[in-house]
């Protein structure tokens, strides 16, 4: 094989690669749009009136996840499935956002931590790599961490809205999450950086709980377990 032939072969490979990336960018853009729509729906829980509407907002968000599912199905067709990690960077961000949104919906509904299997189910993807387009464990954890900071905001706003028991429940939940993350041996990677922010969320919620407890607010609910 001559030098010229070799280079034109590689050039062919590279441009094919670029075409795939171009396609992926387009689909991911649409997916990001859908994620933003869900976020907008869920954002309203922070408003004063929003707390009563949580179930209806969650139902609406769940509906919107339907469109996400079809778009992810579209995404899956754009590249060979065994090359997931070759193009991972393209959808990593949006997949983390979607995990966050799914986790947030599940928390609002049942106040539990969404499992990786549940997220995969909501997004209609797989958990194990071998089975196809899957949710990487690091992306799942990153999404959970985004939710933690959203919850610290929710704790503050629920006090403003007069719901004094919610911060305490959030506090318990976040503390559990925090001790969960401590089990992990993280490398010096983006996930670790994000995890480092968790302690500020924990601190913020603790402050809210503290403020409530020295004023005797939320006493009628179960309290005194932290203090």
């Amino acid at each position, binding site marked *: *094989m*001559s*030098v*010229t032939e*070799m*280079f*034109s*072969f*590689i*050039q062919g*490979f*590279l*441009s094919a690669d*670029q075409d795939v990336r171009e396609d992926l960018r387009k689909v991911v853009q649409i997916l990001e749009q859908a994620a933003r729509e869900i976020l907008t729906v869920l954002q309203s829980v922070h408003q004063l009136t929003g707390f009563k509407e949580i179930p209806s907002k969650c139902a609406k968000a769940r509906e919107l996840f339907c469109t996400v599912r079809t778009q992810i199905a579209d995404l899956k067709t754009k590249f060979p499935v*065994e*090359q*997931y*990690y*070759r193009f*991972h960077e393209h959808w990593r961000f949006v997949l983390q956002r979607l995990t966050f949104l799914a986790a947030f919906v599940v928390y609002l509904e049942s106040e539990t*931590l969404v*499992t*990786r299997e549940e997220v995969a189910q909501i997004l209609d993807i797989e958990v194990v*790599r*071998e089975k196809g387009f899957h949710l990487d*464990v*690091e992306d799942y*954890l990153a999404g959970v961490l985004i939710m933690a900071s959203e919850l610290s905001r929710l704790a503050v706003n629920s006090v403003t809205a007069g719901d004094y028991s919610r911060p305490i429940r959030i506090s318990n939940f976040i*503390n*559990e*999450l925090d*001790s*969960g*993350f*401590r*089990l*992990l*041996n*993280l*490398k010096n990677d983006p996930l670790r950086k994000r995890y480092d922010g968790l302690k500020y969320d924990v*601190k913020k919620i*603790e402050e809210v709980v*503290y403020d409530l407890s020295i004023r005797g607010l939320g006493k009628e609910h179960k309290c005194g377990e932290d203090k």
Partner: protein
Amino acid sequence: MSKREGDGCSRKKAETEQERNMTADQSSSSIAAAFKVFQQELDTKHDKYERLVKISRDITIESKRSIFLLNRVTNVPDVEEVLKEAAVKLDGVTQKIGLIAEELRGEDIHQFHRAFTPGIQEYVEAISFLHYIRHRSLISLEEINAKLVFMKAEKVDPKSSVEVVPADVQVLTFQVTPSDYLLGVADLTGELMRMCISSVANGDIDTPFQLSQFLRQIHDGFSYIGNTGPYEVSKKLHTLRQSLAKVEDACYALHVRGSEIPKHMLADVFSSRTALIDPEESMV
């Protein structure tokens, strides 16, 4: 303030307590149980990554050594001996790549690609250098990949004898990605430039012309790819231009001076020129 400090302290204590309670209090520790699983998964992944980095580093070192060895070709009487030694060394490197292939069995090669790409590039550089010296042509990607097929006989050790292990051979392959190949070839040009200069210094006046021809082809190939390739390629293109300029200048000097100066003095003239490295101006 003091409250928070106290809190942190008690949490630390709580942590150890939690470990103890974990078995007792199953309901609230479903999160903890889930994270235990994540911990394992992440640790396995990180361990594999580290192992690959280590293998890659070994590959880099060994490949570099073979390249140094091959650079000696120009001033050694028995070329074949050196080539044989280098080939043996590179076979060792190939075996190491076999270890990578084994680590990657059933994994997505791109997930861990960053761990071993430096080693593979160095290997491509070494193997293509050897190939060039032998055949005066560019080794193709398929030829490299053809070398990276590993047969591994399944060992029947006493522990696993419970299950019936088929005695057939396992075939493992490792595929060099086109971009790794490209980057390795870009590095090769630097070695070829060295080889050109040193062969002139040894009074060999044919090799430089061959090399400049070859380098020009590679340069044209890279220009053809341009910036469609990965980011690192465009960076290497700059160095490639410099190498090419040096080789072309050397050929120029040989051509101009070659007819004026007696052959036996040529080497001296040229080696003092290249020592200056400064092109063109000092030549004319």
